């Protein structure tokens, strides 16, 4: 009898054991290794040299600047667009499943394929230029990529990322909208709310938790922005993750690459922490 009870108490932990071991070996240990890489010099002494090198490097500040620029243009656009789409699909008109499916298509596309899809449209022989030439709107192709054109490339990247990742936000928001019971809105109807009043006083506050988590996830993802930028603009538009890649794969300088990674982790942790302390939906607490 006693052993039976014991078995039951320990079972869930035993079931979790493989996961915990795996994460300790493949996350815990490499993380320690990263610290070693960054903060221990070749002679084996603790040192902030890598950090200082990074802080003094103008490329780092440029990469931080562009990462933030991408963040502040892409994320609001995505969230706004995704929210509009979610509100639209949530009206459950005839055939809304079809639209849902179409919006979801880019969900599974990688950043590499999104970059190529976008290149296909915006390159000098791409569809956009051919089309504009045919219409006579322009006389020579507009170049979007290449030296000195980074501001044009910037907007192409923004467009590509908005296209690719809006569905992610859309799905979170739609899930959030779908759990709002229809009754709450019908109660609004019965008590004489106008459409706007229903939206601002009922739908919006109730979907707020989803909106906030979508915002957080997109913000964190934006710090990992890499593939699209690297393929379409290279290092003309340096970003943090791209620099980590460049230092590792091209310059074979693991300590600096790791330091870039470390900076990304710190920023992400700070944002998550700030997010959790700032936003708290009190009404969800028991």
């Amino acid at each position, binding site marked *: 009898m006693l052993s039976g009870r014991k078995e039951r108490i320990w079972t869930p932990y035993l079931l979790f054991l493989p996961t915990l071991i795996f994460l300790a070996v493949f996350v815990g240990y490499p993380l320690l290794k990263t610290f070693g890489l960054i903060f221990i010099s070749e002679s084996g002494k603790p040192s902030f040299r890598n950090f200082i090198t990074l802080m003094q490097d103008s490329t780092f500040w440029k990469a931080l600047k562009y990462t933030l620029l991408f963040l502040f243009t892409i994320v609001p656009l995505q969230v706004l667009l995704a929210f509009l789409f979610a509100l639209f699909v949530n009206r459950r008109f005839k055939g809304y499943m079809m639209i849902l499916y179409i919006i979801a298509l880019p969900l599974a596309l990688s950043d590499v394929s999104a970059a190529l899809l976008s290149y296909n449209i915006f390159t000098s022989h791409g569809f956009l230029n051919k089309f504009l030439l045919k219409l006579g709107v322009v006389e020579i192709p507009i170049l979007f990529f290449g030296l000195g054109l980074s501001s044009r490339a910037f907007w192409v990247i923004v467009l590509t990322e908005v296209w690719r990742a809006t569905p992610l936000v859309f799905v979170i928001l739609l899930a959030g909208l779908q759990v709002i*019971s229809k*009754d*709450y809105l*019908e*109660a609004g*109807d*019965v*008590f*004489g*709310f*106008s459409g706007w*009043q229903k939206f601002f*006083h*009922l739908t919006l*506050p*109730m979907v*707020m938790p989803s909106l906030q988590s979508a915002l957080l996830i997109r913000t964190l993802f934006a710090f990992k922005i890499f593939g699209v930028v690297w393929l379409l603009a290279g290092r003309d538009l340096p970003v943090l993750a791209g620099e980590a890649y460049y230092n590792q794969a091209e310059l074979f300088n693991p300590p600096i690459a790791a330091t870039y990674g470390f900076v990304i982790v710190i920023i992400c942790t700070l944002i998550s922490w700030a997010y959790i302390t700032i936003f708290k*939906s*009190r*009404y*969800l*607490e*028991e």
Partner: protein
Amino acid sequence: MTNVTIRGLCKYFDRVKAVDNLDLEIKAGEFIVLLGPSGCGKTTLLRCISGLERVTAGRVFFDDHDMTYLSPKGRDISMVFQNYAVWPHMRVEKNIAFPLKVKKFPQQEIKKRVAWASDLLRIEELLDRYPAQLSGGQRQRVAVARAIVVEPRVLLMDEPLSNLDALLRVRMRSEVKKLQQKLTVTTIYVTHDQVEAMTMGDRIAVFNQGMLQQVGISDVIYHNPANTFVAGFIGSPQMNFIEVEIESINNELYLRTKNLTIPLNDKFKAKVSEHSGIRNYILGIRPEHIYLTGQSKTYPVTKGKVYFLELLRSDTIIHLETEFGFLVVKEPGDLKLEENREIEVSFDLNRIHLFYEDTGNSIMT
């Protein structure tokens, strides 16, 4: 106080006729209960009256105003939802006050009315809480407070008590009824619970399969059911139905089947002779109107074997196996009967109901 008139109302969902060609007059200040099994269309009718559902055809009038194509906003109604729909992100006070704010009441008036409603429903201490911190019963009170505070022309209630536990439900029945009497607001109350309907409604409208079966005060619904559906739906245990034939013996008319012979009551005679062509009827009799023979020998008698006893202690429900099928008898008090024993029972002739076999309608209508 507002009259509600429903004329020829139809609501179809694709092929399904949720409400079919329905006429109903609801008097000003009346508490009417829409009663029926789940899926009978009573909630759909309520939603059509509220404007949440667009009617397929027909008209809805409040007094002389045609409301049929008005949105709920224009109808000056309020509603208590089955799962309350108390907005989760607003405190109780705001939940009650918000509809008033939307209707642009002055701040002073809002305060006064919230105080009045929360006093009436005894929820003053809850005003600062969020709905998640309330019990089901408390949430229900908030929903009712929110509904009455706007002083609607018509108050709609969609199974408001069905999510409460049994004890609370009984208490809330009387409270809601008292409240309605105090406010004298025209109230349309949907339920599938016949006890709720009988105890609360000024009148009861019984529904089945999208059609109105009978409207009337509870006395009429119980004692003069219009058809076999109403007769079977109201009352517990259910009314006994026995297929009988009319037979003439010595110039007297009798209802007969197997070993049961019942002389035709005077009140039926006129109706039956008019339709002398029809031979097959359904006889209905409630379990409480069948007596063990020892008590009254004046009524016609039949025999049966005790199959099963439900000992409720306050009453005893006897399931009898007879030659024409099972017969359920309800006797007050605690009875001692062995199973399989053969006993005699008699039918109260004045309490017999008679329905046409083909339509199921009462022959008295």
